[in-house]
């Protein structure tokens, strides 16, 4: 039986590198060990948990519909049911970093194709990913590179590539933007049949040599007849790029940082942590797995439990996984997608290319009420398989004093770490009805009911908002 600290650490890893894990999975992973689990997350087995044929058999609308909700639902389905949690999590990371929105792209299947690319390429290396991104049709349309022509450049993509996707503001000149933009001229989208009225067709990347500027460019102190790949090669060798990506990874996986616009004036929470990630980046040639391996195995990561406010997608997906009632094709998945949106994160539709603001900015009054009600409703339903398992775990512990009852609930639902004050309040609540016992059918039924209410209250705490 693993000790409580090991379980807590494993739960932390699974919350950050995935969307949480049940108690049974945590124990199993603890038996295999922390570093082995990191390796397994980075290089998962053959079974993704999603049978692609069955997915489209039971949800034919996922590949037939043109509606945003179908695309969002497919992604949520994959996040909830994946056995490759880090692949889904890194897709979410890249989606939040390379924020592309359906508000302009107006093409949910293309948005989903971009996410699929993040899932597939997201753990390779940064230069590869940037090239794929530059050639991704949704991105090309989102940042107007289809309007970036030889002799008449559109800087939108070139600017955001440098400012928001790689180096960060202040580390390049306006001329660098122009020169980069020249290098990406002719990188555009091939024509396809319109989606109406016989359904979707996919865009493809198209390089048009007659529209490409083959001339000499000066970019970040280098001179040559650069094209887009060359520009990306130069960008990814910059330490500024390593530092920028490190800070994003830290903010997403480790602990909430100030928002991006403040980065030039506000230093990172943990300079040494960023340095370590930068070193991993430079040493590995921007290999994402190498950087994440360093991150997850670091002390600063292990010490950062509950220092990250769950995004709506993290909250919704991890709660659904924990409740265990969304483990197979069923109706109701669209509601999970809507729930993310109603809590402030409409997947594939960030508010702008600057993406969602994270950390405490996920929370406002309406969002908080939604988060509390959503999680409390699922976790208080003792008929759901995951909640049943928690109740069974309580039952295994036999008769429980009120304090042990509260402690056990916190352990089995997370473990969730709460402030002493919160614990005292939960305890006062538990003490009203005395010990938990399972001796008779009546007392077992009563205990089960009390467990549901206690889990609802834990889901309603401030602490539950953190991962």
């Amino acid at each position, binding site marked *: 039986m693993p000790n409580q600290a090991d379980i807590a650490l494993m739960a932390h890893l699974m919350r950050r590198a995935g969307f949480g894990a049940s108690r049974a999975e945590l124990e199993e992973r603890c038996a295999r060990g922390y570093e082995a689990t990191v390796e397994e997350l980075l290089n998962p087995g053959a079974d993704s948990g999603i049978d692609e*044929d*069955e997915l*489209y*058999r*039971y949800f*034919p*609308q996922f*590949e*037939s*519909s*043109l*509606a945003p*909700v*179908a695309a969002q*639902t497919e992604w949520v389905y994959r996040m909830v049911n994946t056995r490759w949690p880090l692949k889904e999590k890194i897709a979410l990371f890249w989606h939040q970093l390379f924020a592309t929105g359906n508000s302009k792209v107006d093409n949910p299947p293309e948005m989903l194709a971009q996410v699929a690319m993040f899932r597939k390429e997201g753990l390779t290396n940064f230069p590869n990913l940037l090239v794929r991104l530059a050639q991704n049709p949704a991105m090309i349309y989102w940042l107007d590179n289809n309007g970036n022509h030889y002799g008449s450049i559109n800087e939108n993509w070139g600017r955001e590539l440098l400012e928001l996707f790689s180096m960060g503001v202040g580390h390049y000149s306006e001329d660098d933007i122009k020169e980069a933009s020249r290098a990406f001229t002719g990188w555009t989208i*091939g*024509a*396809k*049949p*319109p989606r*109406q*009225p*016989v*359904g*979707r*067709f996919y865009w493809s990347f198209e390089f048009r040599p007659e529209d490409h500027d083959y001339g000499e460019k000066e970019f970040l102190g280098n001179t040559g007849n650069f094209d887009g790949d060359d520009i990306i090669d130069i960008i990814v060798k910059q330490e500024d790029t390593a530092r920028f990506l490190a800070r994003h990874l830290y903010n997403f996986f480790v602990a909430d940082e100030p928002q991006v616009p403040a980065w030039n004036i506000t230093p990172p929470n943990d300079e040494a942590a960023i340095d370590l990630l930068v070193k991993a980046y430079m040493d590995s040639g921007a290999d994402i797995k190498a950087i994440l391996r360093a991150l997850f195995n670091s002390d600063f990561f292990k010490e950062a439990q509950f220092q990250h406010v769950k995004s709506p997608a993290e909250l919704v997906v991890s709660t659904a996984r924990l409740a265990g009632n969304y483990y197979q094709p*069923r*109706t109701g998945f*669209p509601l999970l997608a809507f729930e993310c949106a109603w809590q402030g994160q409409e997947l594939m539709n960030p508010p702008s290319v600057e993406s969602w603001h994270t950390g405490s900015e996920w929370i406002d009054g309406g969002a908080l009420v939604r988060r509390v009600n959503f999680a409390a409703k699922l976790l208080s339903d003792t008929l759901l398989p995951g909640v049943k398992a928690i109740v069974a775990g309580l039952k295994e512990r036999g008769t429980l004093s009120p304090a042990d009852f509260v402690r056990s609930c916190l352990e089995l639902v997370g473990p969730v770490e709460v402030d002493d004050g919160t614990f005292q309040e939960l305890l006062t609540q538990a003490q009203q009805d005395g010990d938990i016992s399972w001796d008779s059918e009546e007392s077992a039924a009563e205990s089960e009911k009390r467990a549901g209410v206690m889990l609802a209250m834990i889901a309603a705490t401030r602490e539950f908002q953190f991962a």
Partner: protein
Amino acid sequence: MLTTIAAGRVFDYSHCIGMYSTSGIGFLVPMDFALGSNETLYVLNRGVDEITLRISKCTLKHEFIADIGRFGMGDGQFVWPMGIALDSDENIYVTDENTNKVTVMDKDGQFLAKWGDAGSAEGQMRGPSGIAVDGANDLYIVDSQNNRVQKFSKDGQRLATWGSEGSGPGQFNKPWGLCLDAEGNVYVADWKNDRVQKFSGDGHFLAEFGVTSDGVGGLSRPTDVAVDSDGDVYVADWGNHQVQIYEPDGKFIATLVGDAQTPSPWVQDYIDANPDVAKARRRTNMEVEWRFNRPIAVNLDADDRLYVAESVRHRIQVYSKERDYAEAAINL
């Protein structure tokens, strides 16, 4: 190619029916369809995320008649409708893979009955999908999650059950569609085994054909099957986006890949009203639109015309089997 000539047969593309639409004319994610009398057509639309689900009743001449049914658990409502069939009075039978029920309606969509119990005991069903009606108005239903076929009277009395999980003869892996031939033999699209199995009407295994492959004669996740008056077998090869045709003994004949080069009249009306759509169609290679995308259901009419429904293209392509075809000279 519009005309496919192979093994002494000629399959000639005729036209298509349908378009993407949330209600009224057109379809949305068709799962199955049935051909009624007087050229009526009943198309079972899954719709999108619990809306726009309906049976579209229209004619083969592109006349819209009515939308029947909607999403829900009530009478005349469906959650995951999978299969549709008609009896000799043209009553409509619909299987629902989610509720494990069969719903019966008259041809105007008036609810008549609903039956079926969830479970794996004989007569119970889990994931009913393909459905066919024989000459005696008995029903054959693919009981998909139970990996078997069951025969019921039209009011739901179990008459026969066969099949089990596996890949051997008479075993299934999540089968989907089925059909009957003129002799009353039963053909089942054994979805995850990538094959079609043929049984006698009382469930004796007779033959199987198709292998897992995207090559000649191969199948990938076949969803439905139909048999013409010559005994030729047409399989909706869902995973490979094609229709495979086999001789009665299972010998492979030909592949159809979809040939909808001329839009349906509904689609044409839409294009005519949208100059930008018309322009967009002229600036690109339209071949991808002609081809099957998720052929999901196949049926034949009394003249051996083949109808192929595509869930991603929201339409039905129609082929005729030409019997007095004179081949043009090859050296033209």
